Structure formats: structure tokens, C-alpha cells
């Protein structure tokens, strides 16, 4: 497995092995023998607004509008999103919820186009030489074309064409492994359009400037390998042939195969300087840059014994799956089953009217003979075949027991979240246990539990901070009252015995303070008040203190998140620490705001006639916009987090931190506004 694979350009490139893996029947010849066909134009197209990972696009057309082929009909909403374009010319007939291809079987917002048969393009901006464009312009074109990862995950491609901020990209990997049985879309694409692929890779490399550029392909595609090797001649792109073994096309597995590096748990490839792109994506990038074509069609494998004319078709996005299959001799089986994707990781379609989208690489309609339905599961005998097959080197047999008995802590300790759900364990299980199903269920339960926990934690921290504030205010009031009483008593005493020294009163005020905490608090409050009156506390210094406290809180939150993942026994301690810091931040903020307010009032007092300087006191409008901006950002972040929690668990941690940061910002903005309003009232 580690035998070096000869390569004319780089004879020393070795292919490394990843743990486990399986060799299911490939069924590739079922569909890779004929050239890519072009699917006919369907009477209507259904374009889901979300065909990618991230936020759904926002429609920019209305029912009744006439659109041209390639015209943008929905716009990306936020950074992690992608535009949607009309795949042909026609009329918008509906913008409503329709069945979409998704494992949940739920409906989602779609734009329906009645095609007019003219297939008339909008004007496209072609570009002969990509080198004449700036990297920024290239990324704009890719984003403008609405390209999202076409291997299956659908991550917006433009984002992956930004090198990570700190370090540069060392390796750009083109995933041409296509390890799933049955699927041959990339195989055919490479055989027929290797030149476009290589140009697409060059464009990506132009944007990323990677140290090396590798195409990883399984050795069961000799024709595609030939075509690639021809096409990469004269470029610095390397074709690396890896042994056929499922799941070598898994991103993490391919990285291990080609570079011997591993993506650390909970991180993304970019963190170790690697970017992976799919073959189809690279071709789409080429077409977007060279011809200005948006992503409106893709190559999809139609296969399975219920389809008589198997093969690959270039199909317009939005084509209803049932209609498409009918064009190629589809016969419903009993029970009827259509799998989107391959037999290992694909999902069974719920509604055949759902359309082909940017990520639909294969439609598999198997007969009951070729993919028999699951047998009844027998007891797990802990034979360990699953552990041998697991490419993540987990202990699936243990995870199964923990998932069954809902021992979530143990499951997490056994790295449940590093499971890539490739299905190798279920495939080899002699007892026919649907293992992956158990893991999915356990993961979703744990995620839900975490969300609830976070929610309640936040509520508790907020409540406790409020309690503390109220308590302090009460004590300060009490102190004021006492001070007034004392002053009155003093005045009285002075009046009654002007000659008598004021000593006893003073000692009475200071002596007990040493052992009475309440008294101490009062003293402190008094001191604070006095000092703020005298402007002893410089708002600038307080601001630094506040910033420091916020930074510390941020750090604590980071540590807490980290601990939640790796070190559950530390969580409680850290939660307490976070709370303490939260309180400190609040205190620091109040000090600062008080100081600011008093300096402002003083400024207002001293320059009673002149208006206060705008620099020192931001206008109310300004504060409102600040607050609004912060709120909008928080909302966006929360949305992204929600999204990530369902689709991109590796991003969750990062997002939670940014949400927390934004929440603090919103709170600060709220407070500033409230303070400003108070000032307004005072004035």
C-alpha cells in the first residue's frame, strides 16, 4: 500500500496508507462505457434557493418575470452562500416551498421556471487569459457563477479560493478518487474534458499559490489517468494514483494518502495548509472564468438496474429527478428506491419530484437483487471487523454500545464526532447492525443536548450578573443613605459642640471596615463615588481595564469550548471561571461608563454654554446604528452557527466563540445606548 507510485515528473512521490477501508463491488462499468449525454430540456425547472452549504440565496426575481439562460435569479445571502442562476430561458411561475433532495425529506423554498424552449443566453463576459485578471477578479467571477463544491458537500467554492489568513496553502488537492461504487461522473468528465479540468486547476492555483498541486485518483480509472497525464504535460500539476479502496476519496483519507498528514480532530484542511477541490468544481471554475458561464448544469451518473439506459448525462440544474430518470428508461422497482449519491453515503430520496441540484453527482435506482434490503440485525458479538474497516480508526463496536445505552460521555470520549459516516463498519458487520444509523442518532442527541446546555448556561450567567448588579445598587443606596445620616449627625454634633474634635466619628467610620465586609463594600462604594466625582479615575485607564477584562473573558470562553470537547472534567471549573470573569467585565464596564458619564457631565458642566464635543459623546443615532449593526451581526453569526451545527461540525467551535464575542458587543452597545438615554433624561 505504501509502495511508491511511479510518476514521470516526480518519481519519488509515495502514496501513504490510511487505516481500514473496504472493497465493495464497484459497479463502475455499468455507467462509464458511454460518453456523457446531454439531457433534454424539461418543461419546468425547480431551483432550490439552497443548493449549497450555508445560507439560502435570496430571490431577486418575481413570479411572471421572464429570465434568460444564465441570468441570476437569487443572490447569495452573506459570506457563506451562493448565487442561483436560471439554467435556461423561461418564465418564473412560482416561488414557493417544494420538495428538495435532502436526507430529511423536507421541502424548502424554490423558484420554478417554465422553460420556453429557446434556451437563450444572457450576454456572457468571456476571458481568454485568466492571467490578465487579478486574483480578486477571479474570485469575483467564481462567486458570481454561484459555484459550490460539486463532490457532494456543496461548500461555496469562492471561500476555499482564499488562502487561510495566517499561512499560505502548501498543497492544493484535486479529489478525483471517486471511491464510491457506481458513481462515474468524475471518471467520464476526466476522460472527456481533461483539458478544461487542468485549466480549472491552474486558475485555482493562480488564486491560492500553493506549493504543490496534486490530483488524487484511484487506480481503477486507467482511461481517466491516461487523459489526465496527457493534459497535465507542461504544467506543475501531479497526477497521483492511489490504490482503489473505499473511502480513499474521503477528504481526510485522501489527504493522508497524498501527503501523509492528518487533519487534526475538529479542524479543517486549511488549518494544515491544504485545500481540497472536486474535479467537477474545477471544471466549473474554468467555465466561469473563461466563458463567464454560471453553474447551471452538472454531470450526473444515472445507474442501477431499474434504469435501462445507464450512463452519465449533463443535466440542467433544477431538472425534476423523476422526469430525468423517465428519459433514460427508469422502471420503478418494488419497493421503489432512488438513492442520491452512492450506495455507501448517498441518501434515499423521499419525493421523486425533487430536482437535480449542484451536489447531485449520482442517481442510483437499484433493484432489490443488486442492493438487497437490510436483513434483521443480530446481536453484536464484538468481533471487531468494524474496527478493522474504520478509516478513522475508531472502535465502532464500542461506539455502538455507548450509542445504544445513551452513554454519550463515553461515546464522545471514544471520538464519536470523528466518525465520517462512511459506512464501512456497517458494510462489514456480520450481524447486519445499522451502525452508522446509531452514530447519527447519538451525534444529533449530543448536539441537541449541548445547545440546550449552552442556552441554559447563558441564561444563568445573565441572571446571576443581574442579581449581582441589583445587590450592589442596593448597597450603594444604603451607603449613600448612611453617609447622609452621618453627615447630618456630624453637622448636628458640630452644631452642638463646635469645639469637640471630630475624631470619634472618623474612627467609627474606618475601624469596623476592616472586619465587616458589608461595611467594606460601603466604603468601597463611597470611595468609588468620591473618586468618580473628583475624576480620579481616568476613563481611558478604565477603558483599558475593560478591554483587558473582555480579552480575558474571551480567552476563558475559548478554553471552556476546548474543554467541552477534550476535557469534560474541567468544564465545571472553567464555567465558574467564566462566570467570575463575566462579572468582572460587567464591573469594569460599569466603572468605565460611570467614569465616562461623569466626565461627560463635568464637561457639560464646565462648558455649560457650549455644546458637548461630539467626539466625546457619540450621538444617539450613532449609538442606535451601532447597536443595530451589532445585533444584525450577532443574528448572522447565530444563523451561521445553526447552519454549521447541522452541516459543518468542525466550524462550530469557532463560530460559538464569535457568537459569544458578538453577544458581548451587543450588550456593550445596549448599555451605551441606555446610558446615553439616561443622560438625555438628566438633561
Amino acid at each position, binding site marked *: 500500500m505504501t509502495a511508491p507510485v511511479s510518476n514521470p515528473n516526480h518519481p519519488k512521490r509515495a502514496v501513504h496508507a*490510511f*487505516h481500514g477501508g*473496504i472493497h*465493495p*463491488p464497484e459497479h463502475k462499468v455499468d455507467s462509464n462505457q458511454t460518453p456523457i449525454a446531454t439531457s433534454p430540456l424539461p418543461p419546468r425547472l425547480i431551483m432550490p434557493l439552497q443548493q449549497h452549504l450555508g445560507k439560502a440565496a435570496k430571490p431577486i426575481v418575481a413570479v411572471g418575470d421572464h429570465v434568460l439562460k444564465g441570468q441570476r435569479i437569487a443572490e447569495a445571502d452573506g459570506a457563506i452562500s451562493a448565487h442561483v442562476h436560471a439554467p435556461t430561458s423561461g418564465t418564473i411561475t412560482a416561488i414557493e416551498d417544494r420538495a428538495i433532495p435532502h*436526507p430529511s425529506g423536507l421541502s424548502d423554498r424554490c423558484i420554478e421556471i417554465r422553460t420556453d424552449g429557446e434556451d437563450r443566453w444572457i450576454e456572457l463576459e468571456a476571458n481568454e487569459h485568466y492571467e490578465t485578471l487579478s486574483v480578486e477578479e477571479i474570485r469575483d467571477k467564481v462567486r458570481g457563477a454561484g459555484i459550490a463544491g460539486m463532490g457532494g458537500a456543496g461548500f461555496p467554492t469562492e471561500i476555499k479560493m482564499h488562502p487561510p489568513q495566517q499561512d499560505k496553502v502548501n498543497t492544493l488537492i484535486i479529489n478525483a478518487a471517486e471511491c464510491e*461504487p457506481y458513481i462515474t461522473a468524475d471518471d467520464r468528465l476526466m476522460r472527456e474534458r481533461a483539458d478544461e479540468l487542468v485549466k480549472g486547476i491552474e486558475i485555482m492555483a493562480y488564486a491560492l499559490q500553493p506549493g504543490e498541486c496534486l490530483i488524487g485518483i484511484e487506480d481503477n480509472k486507467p482511461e481517466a489517468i491516461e487523459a489526465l497525464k496527457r493534459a497535465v504535460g507542461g504544467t506543475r500539476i501531479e497526477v497521483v494514483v492511489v490504490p482503489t479502496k473505499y473511502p480513499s476519496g474521503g477528504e*481526510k483519507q485522501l489527504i493522508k494518502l497524498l501527503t501523509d498528514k492528518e*487533519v*487534526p480532530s*475538529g479542524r479543517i484542511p486549511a488549518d494544515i495548509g491544504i485545500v481540497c477541490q472536486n474535479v467537477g468544481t474545477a471544471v466549473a471554475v474554468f467555465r466561469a472564468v473563461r466563458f463567464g458561464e454560471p453553474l447551471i448544469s452538472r454531470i450526473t451518473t444515472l445507474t442501477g438496474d431499474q434504469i435501462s439506459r445507464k450512463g452519465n448525462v449533463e443535466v440542467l440544474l433544477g431538472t425534476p429527478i423523476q422526469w430525468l430518470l423517465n428519459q433514460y428508461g427508469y422502471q420503478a422497482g418494488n*419497493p*421503489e*428506491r432512488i438513492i442520491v449519491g452512492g*450506495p*455507501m*453515503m*448517498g*441518501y*434515499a*430520496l*423521499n*419525493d*421523486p419530484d425533487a430536482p437535480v441540484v449542484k451536489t447531485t453527482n449520482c442517481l442510483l435506482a437499484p433493484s432489490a437483487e443488486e*442492493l*438487497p*434490503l*437490510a436483513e*434483521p440485525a*443480530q*446481536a*453484536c*458479538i*464484538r*468481533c*471487531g*471487523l468494524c*474496527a478493522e474497516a474504520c*478509516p*478513522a*480508526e*475508531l*472502535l465502532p463496536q*464500542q461506539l455502538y454500545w455507548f450509542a445504544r445505552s445513551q452513554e454519550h460521555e463515553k461515546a464522545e*470520549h*471514544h*471520538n464519536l464526532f*470523528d466518525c465520517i*459516516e462512511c*459506512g464501512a463498519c*456497517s*458494510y462489514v458487520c*456480520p*450481524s447486519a447492525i*445499522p451502525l*452508522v444509523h446509531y452514530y447519527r442518532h447519538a451525534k444529533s442527541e449530543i448536539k441537541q443536548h449541548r445547545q440546550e446546555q449552552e442556552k441554559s448556561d447563558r441564561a444563568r450567567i445573565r441572571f446571576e450578573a443581574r442579581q449581582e448588579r441589583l445587590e450592589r445598587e442596593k448597597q450603594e443606596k444604603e451607603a449613600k443613605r448612611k453617609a447622609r445620616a452621618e453627615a447630618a449627625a456630624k453637622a448636628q454634633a458640630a452644631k452642638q459642640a463646635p469645639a469637640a474634635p471630630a475624631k470619634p466619628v472618623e474612627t467609627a467610620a474606618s475601624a469596623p471596615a476592616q472586619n465587616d465586609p458589608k461595611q467594606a463594600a460601603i466604603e468601597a462604594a463611597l470611595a468609588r463615588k468620591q473618586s468618580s466625582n473628583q475624576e480620579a479615575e481616568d476613563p481611558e485607564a478604565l477603558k483599558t481595564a475593560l478591554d483587558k477584562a473582555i480579552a480575558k473573558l474571551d480567552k476563558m470562553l475559548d478554553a471552556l469550548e476546548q474543554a467541552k470537547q*477534550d*476535557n*469534560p472534567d*474541567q468544564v465545571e471549573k472553567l464555567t465558574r471561571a467564566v462566570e467570575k470573569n463575566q462579572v468582572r467585565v460587567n464591573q469594569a464596564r460599569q466603572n468605565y461608563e460611570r467614569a465616562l458619564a461623569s466626565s461627560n457631565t463635568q464637561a457639560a458642566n464646565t462648558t455649560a454654554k457650549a455644546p458637548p464635543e461630539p467626539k466625546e459623546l457619540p450621538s444617539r443615532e450613532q449609538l442606535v446604528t451601532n447597536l443595530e449593526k451589532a445585533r444584525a451581526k450577532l443574528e448572522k453569526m447565530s444563523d451561521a452557527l445553526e447552519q454549521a451545527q447541522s452541516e459543518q461540525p468542525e466550524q462550530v467551535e469557532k463560530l460559538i466563540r464569535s457568537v459569544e464575542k458578538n453577544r458581548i458587543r451587543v450588550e456593550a452597545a445596549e448599555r451605551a445606548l441606555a446610558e446615553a438615554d439616561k443622560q438625555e433624561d438628566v438633561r
Partner: protein
Amino acid sequence: MALLTLSSPHAKGSNRTSDLMRWVILACVPGLALQTYFFGWGNLHNVLWCACIALSCEAIVLKLRGRAPAFYLKDYSALVTAVLLGLALPPLAPWWISLVATTFAIVFAKHLYGGMGYNPFNPAMAGYALVLISFPVAMTTNWATPSSMLADGQLGLGDTLAVIWQQSPLPDGFSGATPLDVYKHEIAYKTEETVRAFAVFGEHFALGWEWVNVAFLLGGLVLLGLKIIPWQTPVAVLTGLAVPSLLLGSDADQYTPLSIHLLAGATMLGAFFIATDPVSSSTTPLGRLVYGFGIGLLTYIIRTWGGYPDAFAFAVLLMNFAAPLIDVYTQPRTYGFAGPKRGPKSRENQ
């Protein structure tokens, strides 16, 4: 009509638990054949008799537990337990020894713990240990004498049945102590040479037993080749037996030599067929090495310093106790981690 929606994967390989079990039984056949050749009909009878008991017990308990007997009987797990007991029990042990051992194995050691997949102890060895403790005389005196030592040849089928079922007295010389037993007791006051001269040791190591062990070794290698059993367990068992024997007991004038440890008694049957029971063994690759080594080591200790001539059953049961703990400390390193997690809580971050 809504389509059929199931979660992935949709493809399934050809492994089946019942196939694995069937292979285990098949791989026992050469050993059983040689046992019959050298020691008469006893083992073959015991295998069949234990099978009848095991299947009946399994069916009755499944019925009582409200499970479908047909579905569970088809996994062949009860049959494997029966075959292992039939191979391990003394060939001329009375019928009720097999009955008690098998019934205890299936009803108590297996089903009272939840049935297939849930038993913490190896059922066959639990049954074996029970009768070994309860009926030590019947378990040590009913070992058949190898055929070649008998002038008139081995007991016939009829005589064997009579001994087992009617407990008719055995003619003199037709039963005796096992080579392991003989060596252990005789070496106390004899030299290696004189002990080796005993007829039970034959020309090589242990008359009859050596070939039976070789046959079980071959059967075990077939299972290894088919990846039905993991390599770690048998390798570790044999290593666990060999290491103390070479380090401490290399003086054949004092201790049983390694060759007899390996080729007499239940060693190969134990290493390849009994210790590899996946349900009650450790389930991690590293854990299986620890688990197997423990079995080998304990077998050596009990054989050398304990009161029983052979010790495989006890060694297996003791390591069964330890298996869950071993699992906790032998997690493999998962992709994307710097090192493996050891123990119930992660320590590497502290």
C-alpha cells in the same frame, strides 16, 4: 407513493455471523478427527451429546425469554459452545458431566446475562470450570489412554457408550493421567530423562496430544487466514505461555518444558478457538494482545504452581473479568489525534 427511505449505507458486504460460527466449527474437525483416532470415540460422542443439550437448552430459554428460537438458533453460537465443550471434556467422562457443563454454559453463563453478545464470560469455559471444581475426580481420571499404548486397541463404540452412559467400570489401563499431569507430578522426584521415558510422552513430546494440538493449530491458521479470528489473541496466548516458560522454567529437570506446554493439554484449542471468543474477550487490537498474554501467563502459572493439571478454563475466565478494563485502556489512536486516549477520561490534555 412515497419512496422507500433508509439511511446509508445501502450496500452490505457478505460477512454473516452464522458463517463465522460455521467456519469455527469446521476448523475444529481435523482436531476432532485426530482426537477420535488417538483416544477413541469419546470426544466425538461428547461433541454430539453436548450439541443436543446446547440446542435444546438454547431453544427452551429463547422460548421462555419470548424470542423467536428459529432466528437465534441459526447463528450457530450455541453449537460452537457445545463443540468446544465436547472437545475439551475428558473423552470418557460420564454423560451427566457433559449435561451439567453444557446446561450451565447455555442457561447461566449465556442467557442469564442477556444471551448472545451480552455474556461477560466464555460460556464453554464457565461450564468447564464448574464441572472441574465440582467433580474433580471424574474430570481427572477419565482421560482415555492413547490407542497405540493399548495392546488390544482402543475401546469400541459400544464399550465407550457403556462407559459413558452406564458407567460400567473401565478395564485397567484404558484411562490415565494426561502428559501435563504426569510430568508435573513425576518431575518432583525424577529427572527429565526418566520422566520422558513414560509411555504417555511417546517418541516426541506427548503421545497423541501432540498431533491433536497440531491439528487444532492448523484449523486455527485457517481461521486466521480467513480473518475470522484476530491474530493478536492466539499469538499473545502462546507468547504468554512461552515467555515465563523460557525465563523461569527452562530447567526441564524442575519444570514442564515449553514443548509439552505447547503440544499437550488444551493449548492450541484454547489459543485459537477458546480465547478468541470475541464476545467475552477484549475488543481493541492492543487489548487483545494484553488479554491473550494474560491468558497464556495465567495458564503457565496455574499449570506450574496450581493444583490443576491444566488451567485454560480458569485463565480465560480470569481474563474475561479483566477484558472491559483492558478495553478502556487500549483505545487506538483515532485519525487526527496526536496519541491514543488511555483510561476512562482523557489524560493527554491535562
